[in-house]
């Protein structure tokens, strides 16, 4: 009954213990469910839903023009909903089905077969388990938010049916395998000893790269650079960003799977790294253009959240502040200089913030976990910073390659079947009316 899967942060504990020790299926008579853990994991699961809708939906929605507002809300909602269904049908099995392949979880838990009220899932502490249903629900929310992040890259011009088809294929062939590789005890990257506490690679780099591929293949929005494409509601964007921050504690502190001191460290780091990234984005903006904008603060917020995601369980609070201060200038550089130089239209900066921020976070995780820097220690066997950083970089590169190639292939398949872009007239008139038959606002 017990879930074989192990989550990445586990690596920390286990590597210190010297072996991956996944034999928790061997008679463990003292398995215990703590209601405090269950309470926290239920809370965490709903917090991640809160991140998707309303959080991400409003964050992205505020950034588009009025005529495309509902399309963003619909895409986010529909992607999350479809992926939840797919998760129960085959996604959970593909990711955590108990198979021993380093690349996927097999078909053992298709339709959640075999999972009952008595099934349990392991945590990072031996003998402490969770009801498997809450593990399924928690991981489901991760599977649901990741593809929704990609919306930021193709917003305001992609075709609804194409998006739906893409997402079903993408979670199946890109997300579930990578989740397995990073978080399952049998997974390839997991066994490299790379640290990804809450999903820097699986979620953010993965979605960021897929977004970049979409942006390049789709081409820019009509009128880009000529028409005013300013956010239709910075209010919604800032409110959405705030909801992301609030919900992100489910993401980050939830990934600890238990309500222990380590979860509270992840929480504190998620507070202060984000705060620091808000401040540093504003400082850069103040320096470059004389004014700190709300969109800058919101962007820094998300960048900080992304960067601390892989690191939150293994970094000290001062290290977290450092990471936050660091990530914003780098993302700022990408969304301003690099994007305009290479002329891809990553409409809402899915790549520039999630992809880039994720890479910065993943690599810095290898450095900031150093005990000398206040971290909780290296996880790779070699036990050196160099080896850890190397493991992190390998994980990043594999994610980039897998997501990049996978996304590209899928987009072209989708293009052939449903098409991926709306007509110029429809784009001009706006997706709300042309794809969904309604308007976001009336008076």
């Amino acid at each position: 009954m017990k879930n074989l899967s192990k989550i990445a942060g586990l690596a920390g504990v286990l590597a210190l213990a010297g072996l991956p020790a996944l034999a928790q299926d061997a008679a463990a008579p003292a398995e215990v469910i703590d209601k405090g853990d269950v309470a926290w994991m239920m809370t965490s699961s709903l917090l991640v839903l809160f991140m998707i809708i309303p959080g991400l939906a409003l964050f992205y929605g505020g950034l588009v023009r009025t005529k495309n507002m509902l399309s963003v809300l619909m895409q986010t909602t529909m992607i999350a909903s479809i992926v939840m269904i797919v998760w129960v049908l085959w996604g959970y099995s593909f990711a955590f089905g108990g198979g021993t392949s380093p690349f996927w979880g097999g078909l053992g838990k298709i339709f959640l077969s075999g999972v009952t009220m008595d099934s349990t899932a392991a945590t990072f502490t031996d003998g402490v388990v969770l009801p498997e249903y809450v593990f399924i629900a928690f991981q489901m929310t991760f599977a649901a938010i990741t593809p929704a992040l990609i919306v930021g890259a193709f917003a305001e011009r992609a075709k609804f049916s194409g998006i739906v088809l893409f997402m079903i294929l993408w979670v199946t062939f890109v997300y579930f395998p990578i989740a397995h590789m990073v978080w399952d005890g049998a997974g390839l990257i997991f066994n490299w000893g790379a640290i990804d506490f809450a999903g820097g690679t699986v979620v953010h780099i993965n979605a960021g790269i897929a977004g970049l591929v979409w942006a390049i293949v789709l081409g820019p929005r009509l009128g880009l650079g000529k028409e005013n494409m300013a956010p239709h509601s910075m209010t919604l964007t800032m409110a959405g960003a705030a909801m992301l921050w609030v919900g992100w504690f489910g993401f980050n502190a939830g990934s600890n799977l238990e309500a222990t001191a380590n979860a509270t460290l992840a929480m504190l780091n998620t507070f202060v790294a984000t705060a620091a990234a808000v401040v540093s984005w504003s400082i850069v903006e103040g320096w470059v253009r004389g004014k700190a904008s709300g969109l800058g603060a919101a962007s820094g917020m998300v960048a900080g959240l992304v960067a601390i995601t892989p690191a939150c369980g293994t970094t000290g609070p001062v290290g977290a502040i450092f990471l936050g201060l660091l990530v914003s200038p780098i993302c700022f550089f990408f969304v301003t200089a690099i994007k305009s130089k290479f002329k891809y239209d990553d409409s809402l900066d899915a790549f520039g913030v999630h992809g880039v921020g994720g890479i910065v976070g993943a690599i810095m995780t290898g450095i900031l976990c150093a005990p000398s820097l206040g971290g909780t220690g290296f996880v790779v066997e070699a036990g050196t910073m160099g080896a850890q950083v190397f493991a992190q970089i390998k994980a990043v590169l594999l994610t980039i390659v897998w997501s990049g190639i996978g996304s590209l292939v899928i987009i072209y398949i989708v293009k052939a079947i449903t098409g991926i872009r709306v007509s110029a007239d429809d784009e001009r008139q706006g997706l709300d009316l042309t794809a969904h038959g309604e308007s976001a606002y009336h008076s």
Partner: protein
Amino acid sequence: MKLIIAAIKPFKLEEVREALTTIGVRGMMVTEIKGFGAQSGHTEIYRGAEYAVNFVPKVKLEIVVADGLADEVVDTILKAAKTDKIGDGKIFVLDVGQAVRVRTGETNDDAL
């Protein structure tokens, strides 16, 4: 009758309306517009995308008055709307052939 169209600064609206009421104007239509003129707009930057907003928020008044009152209306607006800064606005006067009050069907000067 004359139609007097005036573009003024939004925060002057109340003052102008009051001044006009004093001289006997009993109705007008007010529209929020974007003005383009010597007063320059501003630049907004969103994550590196820079937008020059060439328009400035203004308020447009449209007032129909009897011929006799037209000059006084123009003068009154001139005085009340003035801040002596660029962008104070313009006043235009056109001829109106006919006016009708919907409720009563009264026409021309009686309709105002």
